């Protein structure tokens, strides 16, 4: 069997057996969703808020919660654990492609991303959100959100391999906070203040959220925003996964 599949299966078993590593990453975005709704639900009503396109505000927020939930440092932290317990050495002494070590971890991120996205969507549905683009839109939302989780995981893995330190690796999750909030996460881009709008325009997370949001709010697929979302995920994935592969290649130096 392919070594990436073998290592991916091991990482997925690990995710399943340590739910405590995933639950906090899920709890925080759901908590933010509930708090945000409590604060602005009566201000942004479907009838008086054009940018909701007839949906409840929760539908506008669901993409933010999805992106928040899948952008975790879990794989990086698991990598630090593998370094600490000496398991990474065992893998590096085996006759396998070293990139399989990273791909195995990313496979677990994909599995975790799919599960977490389904849960977040279920919470959104419970609060009244609906995915207007239907079944195809739901599948796309789950796949794209999980793919973003895989793409972003590279940063935590790279930091883990470079620093071998839990605290620093965990900080990669904190990097995501400004990335998430310097976006049109509460209101659409055209309602943002000037400086924030300028930052949001160059923030890749903006394009991920917007692409996912259009799938929730509109019946028809908006190919422009969807394409920008896919390209952003792909580009982020290529850059951050390359960084993690490079960190692994120079791990022993």
């Amino acid at each position, binding site marked *: *069997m392919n070594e990436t599949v073998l290592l991916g299966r091991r990482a997925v078993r690990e995710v399943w057996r340590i739910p405590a590593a995933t639950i906090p990453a899920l709890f925080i975005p759901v908590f933010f969703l509930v708090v945000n709704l409590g604060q602005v639900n009566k201000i942004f009503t479907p009838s008086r808020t054009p940018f909701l396109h007839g949906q409840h505000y929760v539908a506008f927020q669901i993409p933010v919660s999805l992106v928040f939930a899948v952008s975790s440092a879990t794989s990086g932290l698991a990598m630090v654990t593998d370094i600490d*317990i*000496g398991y990474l050495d065992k893998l590096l002494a085996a006759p396998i492609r070293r990139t399989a070590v990273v791909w195995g971890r990313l496979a677990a991120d994909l599995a975790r991303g799919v599960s977490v996205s389904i849960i977040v969507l279920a919470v959104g549905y419970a609060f009244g959100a609906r995915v207007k683009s239907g079944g195809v839109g739901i599948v796309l939302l789950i796949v794209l959100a999980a793919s973003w989780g895989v793409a972003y995981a590279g940063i935590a893995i790279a930091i883990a391999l470079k620093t071998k330190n839990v605290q620093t690796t965990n900080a990669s999750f904190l990097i995501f906070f400004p990335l998430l909030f310097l976006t049109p996460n509460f209101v659409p881009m055209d309602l943002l203040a000037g400086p924030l709008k300028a930052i949001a325009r160059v923030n890749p997370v903006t394009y991920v959220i917007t692409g996912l949001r259009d799938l929730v709010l509109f019946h028809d697929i908006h190919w422009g925003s969807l394409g920008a979302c896919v390209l952003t995920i792909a580009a982020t994935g290529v850059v951050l996964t390359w960084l993690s592969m490079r960190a692994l290649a120079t791990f022993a130096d």
Partner: protein
Amino acid sequence: MNGEHAIEVSGLSKRYRGSRGQPDVEAVRGIDLQVAGGEVFGFLGPNGAGKTTTVRMLCTLLPISDGIATVAGIDVRNDPAQVRRRIGVALQEVGLDPTQTGRELLELQCGLYKVADPAARTVELLELVGLSDATDRLVKTYSGGMKRRLDLATALVHAPEVLFLDEPTTGLDPASRVTIWDEVRRINESGATVFLTTQYLEEADQLCERVAIIDEGKIVAQGTPDALKSELGSDVVTVGLDTDHHDDARRALSDVPNLDHITDAAEGLAVYVDDGAAAVADIVQLLGAAGIRPGAITLSRPSLDDVFLAATGRRIEGGLPAPAETAGVR
């Protein structure tokens, strides 16, 4: 394989760059080693001597700074991927994922080494290391000894030509240590060359056909344990004494016939002589004449610790300082 050597090392060095203006650290300083195919070779030294660094270079886990190393006839620098196919590795840190079961970890390891029937090989190895009853338990529930045995099994999945064991019994209780020794002997009998690092002298004495002693990154002695001890050419008579009498006793014992030298020992003094049995009566007589009443007197052959002491002026274990002075050198 290159000639008869399973491992051949020449001028092997490892330098770490000093951080923030600190000088470079040379952990291994141009060592030479030859390990014959099929032997159990002991690499002995105190903590920080360079044992693990050497093993990590030979296992392709650490880049070599200088020198040449071949393992199973393959150049470690030029073809690390081929070396990895031919070696098994059980490092000092037990490298096991605690969230997996023993079976899952071994089957995964078999898969990584492309073993033909991973399930059958896993059952076979779990039986070999006596873990058949714990097959489907998570590794985090294993005792320290069980983890060591499972770690050893993971290093054996592909029947490696050369097995590297880095301090395989450190931290184990005596019973578990003996179990690991038995496993190492069995592995060696099956044809594998074993390169074993240890800081336990008894372990090297029990298991190894030849040893090299490393200190501060340099090999200070190399040969069979018996030959190294014989080079010291003496028996050791350990004399129990009160601390107050050490200096007087040392002076009195300098007249022992055929004396090699005297060092401090935990119990009193260690007297190195050519014929220990004959010297005991002289020692008692000389101490009596000096008005000193000795405690227990024991006779033994020199240990590997004595070899290390002779080569470096320090002991590997036991915490004894180097003798402040020696007396009666012939």
